[in-house]
């Protein structure tokens, strides 16, 4: 068994869920999280046109104000959704490929996918263990 932890854009959750249903592994856990990556929490989206950046500078928010003035440094975060999926070993690469395909916009902030081992599982309702518990 493997656990797939995918940290993705908030607006891609519905599409990702549908992609998982199409493959036949619909069960998942979704959490709202705040994240930052190599770019240290700076937003890179469709809105990154010159006009939009000018508009943001004209209407200062606490973050832009802190960036432009020498205030105590603030760590910026971007809201993300975290999906956790536990699946058998043999479908991991299929699922990872599907998640990447749906979420790939080619811009910073698309997210990360982690695969880590899971040693055991138990279905609470029936007491089924390991492989049976996740099918």
């Amino acid at each position, binding site marked *: 068994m*493997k656990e797939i932890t995918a940290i993705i854009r908030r607006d891609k959750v519905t599409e990702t869920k549908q992609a998982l249903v199409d493959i036949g592994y619909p069960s998942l856990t979704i959490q709202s999280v705040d*994240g*930052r990556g*190599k*770019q240290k929490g700076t937003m890179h989206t469709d809105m990154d046109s010159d006009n939009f950046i000018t508009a943001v500078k004209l209407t200062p928010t606490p973050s832009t104000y802190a960036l432009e003035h020498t205030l105590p*440094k603030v*760590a910026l975060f971007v809201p993300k959704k975290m999906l956790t999926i536990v699946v058998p070993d043999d479908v991991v690469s299929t699922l*990872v490929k599907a998640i990447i395909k749906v979420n790939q916009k080619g811009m910073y902030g*698309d997210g990360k*996918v982690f695969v880590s081992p899971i040693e055991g599982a138990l279905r609470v309702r029936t007491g089924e263990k390991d492989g049976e518990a996740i099918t």
Partner: protein
Amino acid sequence: MKMIRAFIRPEKDQEVVLALEGAGFPALTKMPVFGRGKQKGLQVGPIHYDELPKTLIMMVIDDKDVDKVINLIQDKAKTGFIGDGKIFVSPVEAAYTVRTGEAVL
């Protein structure tokens, strides 16, 4: 690769994140959680708090950086009082960047 999960005091998270950024580990995920430890919560006079708010910081790093990151987090999150939190380390087999589709951290 290893996944570090650190449960720290919510008021310490900015300090910890900025220290990690300064040391070259800017990438992390945080989420608010509630939990309790060995002391079964907190008793303040007649009031008993069963679950206390904490911040969970999750980050995936290379094996060689684990000790460095744990020391950094402990250094900044420590107050010396009960409730400073815990750090857990677990294995990660693969990490993919969605933007490029490559299996590198």
